[in-house]
């Protein structure tokens, strides 16, 4: 899995590539919490367009990021979810808890 951060309007985009599974979710969690807690980025966009798979540990990291962003008064915004990632979100019944958009343009405009 690879994580690349780039600046965007009002925040940072984290481009994630690969699978977010037990081996790699700790890296995503670290990057996410660093942006939210340490850098206090007001909007963190998570680009999941190139994520083929996410497991429950990945979902747990997202939930942790969401809670941290709420605590900070910032926003965590997800976009580009594949069918596989959407299915897992639905199974977790978390799709309504997260702010999710289809595309980067929609996410940035939100």
């Amino acid at each position: 899995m690879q994580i690349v951060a780039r600046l965007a309007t009002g925040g940072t985009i984290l481009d994630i590539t690969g699978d977010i599974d037990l081996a790699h979710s700790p890296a995503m969690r670290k990057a996410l919490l660093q942006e939210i807690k340490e850098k206090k980025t007001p909007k963190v966009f998570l680009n999941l367009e190139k994520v083929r798979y996410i497991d429950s540990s990945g979902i747990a990291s997202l939930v942790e990021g969401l809670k941290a962003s709420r605590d900070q008064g910032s926003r965590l915004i997800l976009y580009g979810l594949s069918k596989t990632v959407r299915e897992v979100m639905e199974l977790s019944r978390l799709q309504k808890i997260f702010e999710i958009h289809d595309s980067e343009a929609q996410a940035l405009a939100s």
Partner: protein
Amino acid sequence: MLLKLELQSNPEALCLVRAAVERAAEVLHFQDSDTRAIVRSVDEALANVVRHAYAGKPGLPIEMSCYKLPGGEQKTAQGGMEILLVDKGVPVRPAALKSRPLDEVRPGGLGLHFIRESMDEVEFSRKKGKNLLRMVKYLSPIPQAASSEGE
């Protein structure tokens, strides 16, 4: 038997297992959504073994076997896939195997819920000092319109 893997409790092995199980499900002509369900369940079950049965210690043995189930009877008419996972970790306590309530927004506790939602049969047991997990997914009947495609 369709597939047998002897692996170790290393998180890095999970992506290889997912690829092998995905291919096995495709060979048995599972629909895409069912293939994803099987892959998800095997991955979550292995992650549970690594994290809980072996407490995160790498290099410990896990065996996975996949069998093709023949069809024939009523709901199982189309046949399916049976997956067995065996580990030598700490005993699984059935009472502790509860998915967490989904209305709680907190990290963790989702893996077992994913497995139970994704598979048709899920059974934990302990035999001769080993944990056994048996999971079954039956092939769904192919809708008429879809079955005629590509013929």
